[in-house]
């Protein structure tokens, strides 16, 4: 069972506002790009032939003998999908599955925050279960249960989850399987108006691997075995850091939000990471304020 209660409790009252007006649709909490007929007046606009005459402001017509349509601010929902990478590389360290558990707690937290904002929330576990976005009161519990039941395995990447995404998508992955494809699809999704959050999951043991001579193997490619020795360790650290920096730059260029989250004993707490993600800060910083509720 995924223990996400503390995360949900810590995120009570936190909201996940849209960064810009969302497309119109079902009434929601986010300001929409369309004008509607709600009580929140926005402006008048000249009547256009063919429009519904019921939208005419009769009082203005009576006073000025001119036909105007009264426009009001519109609010819409922002469906949010949490995509969680459940490939074998997420089951690390193998003794604790710390990276996967941390990603699952983050996913539950993000789902709770999005649900608390009033948006429908869905879940997509790569190679596994998929829950369509909905606003049910139990959706967060359902997501938590689905995450608890999932077992990280296989080599499926997260790129497939982006092909039909809409609204807002938060991808929690280490991006080791298909980083280039994910970046390309994120760029395409952005053009469709999809807001993409790339949450890069990295375990502390990956940032500071063992120092002794050890042969390391890629869980998704068992044939790939490399000697990690004091001689090769500096090159590993440099290569990994260069790759992370390049990935962050690629996501930024694609118009996606990028956030690096470190799991492990000294990693960033899940609640704090969620606050940082919904605030749009790419990296953890202890002196930064928490996300605005």
């Amino acid at each position, binding site marked *: 069972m995924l223990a996400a209660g503390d995360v949900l409790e810590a995120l009570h009252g936190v909201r996940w506002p849209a960064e810009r007006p969302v497309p119109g649709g079902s009434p929601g909490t986010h300001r929409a790009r369309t004008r509607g007929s709600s009580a929140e007046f926005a402006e008048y606009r000249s009547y256009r032939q063919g429009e519904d005459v019921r939208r005419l402001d009769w009082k203005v017509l009576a006073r000025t003998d001119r036909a105007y349509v009264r426009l009001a601010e519109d609010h819409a929902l922002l469906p949010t999908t949490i995509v969680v990478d459940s490939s*074998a590389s997420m089951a690390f360290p193998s003794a604790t599955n710390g990276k996967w558990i941390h990603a699952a707690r983050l996913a539950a937290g993000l789902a709770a925050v999005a649900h608390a904002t009033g948006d429908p929330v869905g879940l997509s576990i790569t190679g596994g279960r998929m829950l369509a976005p909905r606003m049910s009161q139990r959706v967060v519990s359902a997501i938590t249960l689905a995450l608890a039941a999932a077992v990280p395995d296989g080599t499926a990447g997260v790129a497939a989850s982006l092909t039909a995404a809409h609204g807002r998508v938060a991808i929690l992955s*280490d991006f080791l399987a298909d980083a280039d494809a994910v970046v390309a699809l994120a760029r395409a999704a952005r053009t469709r108006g999809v807001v993409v959050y790339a949450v890069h999951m990295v375990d502390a043991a990956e940032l500071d691997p063992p120092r002794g001579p050890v042969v390391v193997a890629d869980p998704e490619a068992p044939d790939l075995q*490399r000697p990690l020795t004091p001689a090769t360790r500096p090159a590993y650290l440099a290569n990994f850091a260069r790759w992370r920096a390049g990935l962050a730059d690629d996501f930024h260029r694609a118009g996606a939000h990028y956030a690096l989250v470190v799991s492990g004993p000294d990693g960033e707490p899940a609640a704090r990471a969620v606050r940082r993600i919904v605030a749009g800060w790419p990296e953890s910083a202890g002196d930064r304020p928490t996300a605005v509720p």
Partner: protein
Amino acid sequence: MTLLAPGYLAAAAVAGGIALGLHLLVTRHGPSAVLPTARFVPAAPAAIVAVTRRPRDLVVLLIRVATLGFAGLAFARPVFTSHRHGTVRIVLADRSSDAGDIGQVRDSVRQILREGDVLVVFDSAARVVPPAGANAAADSLDRVSVRGRLSAALIVARREAARLRTAGDSIEMDLISPVTGDELDAATPAIRTLWAGRIHVVRVPAAGDSSTPPRVMMRASAGDPLLDAAPVRQRMLGAGGAGGATPGVRIVRDVPAAEDSAWARAGEGRVLVVWPGVGDPAGWLPRQPVDTVGAVVAFGPGPIAVVAAFARRWRVAASNGRVRARWIDGEPAVVEHAAGSGCIRDVAIPVPVAGDLVLRPEFEELVAALLRPCGDAWRPVLPVAQSSVAMIAGSGRLMASDSVAAASGDEPLVPWFAGAALVLLIVEAVIRRGRARLSAMPVHLAGTA
């Protein structure tokens, strides 16, 4: 037991150490771990070479070390050394034509040779006389008409030294020879260096040495012009020159008799010079008419050419003899035939009664050449430099027996050690093949094997 080439054993010890060191090195994959970001580790062989305290595969290591040890022993050539005392002597006796007096050679051999010594008699080839027959061989030592070759004698002596290395702690070589320049060749200095010790050189007079010219007996008329030739006059029996009382050369200026031939056959090295001044010797072909030729050429210590108006009276047949001088047109002028232990030399050179030809130096050289010993000794005996004799003699101690490489039959342990090394190699190959086969079997089969 001692080792003839201990360096190989040392090399084997070093190789064994290297083998041990290699067995202490283990190539392993080390502890393996899962790291999703393994792709960022630089590509390199995954095997890790480490040093362990306990050598891996102890059985194979022992076999390899033993193989190297046996191979090293085989190459080191161990030989059994008996309790050796004293000096072994090898006596080289020169019986070639370079030796002027074989009697002196014989006397020297008798004086030096002791019980158990090895006698090597040599001329152009060398022959080993076993100790049992050495004294008899020394007594019957005869001079032969071929030139001596010191290189052949030294090689045989070296071979005998290898055979006798276990008989004594040092080996002495006594060389009884005139040591002439003809007996040395280009290989002699190199062969001499193979004998790591001094050589006792007993020099005997060389053939043709001026110190012992054979005496001359001449049968001629009182006014024979040849009597005025200096070589004849000085060496005539009864003259004041040195030499023995027995003549070694007989000059017959008239028709030779049977007694002359018998004289030549009776004594060793006797030379009968048939040099007719009057009459025609039996078997000679008179030339009709008498021919005149301008010069005659012979070889003494060097080329001798006498230019004069010689009137050739005979044709000398060279079918069964050796030409010692020729007329200028190539026709034989002096022919030598072997006769028993001596020889008969037919000289068809007329000696003019008038004139001073017999007093001219080149004619005297020709006469001296015609009085030289028989056979190959007719050629000049080249003198040898004192430095060459010193080179042959050498200096320092006698050659130590241990410095002599043993003959192949003296190393009985070598094939055993080599065979043991070979067997161990085969055993190692069998063990490794068996292990490879076992490791290739499925686990459940391996467990039941």
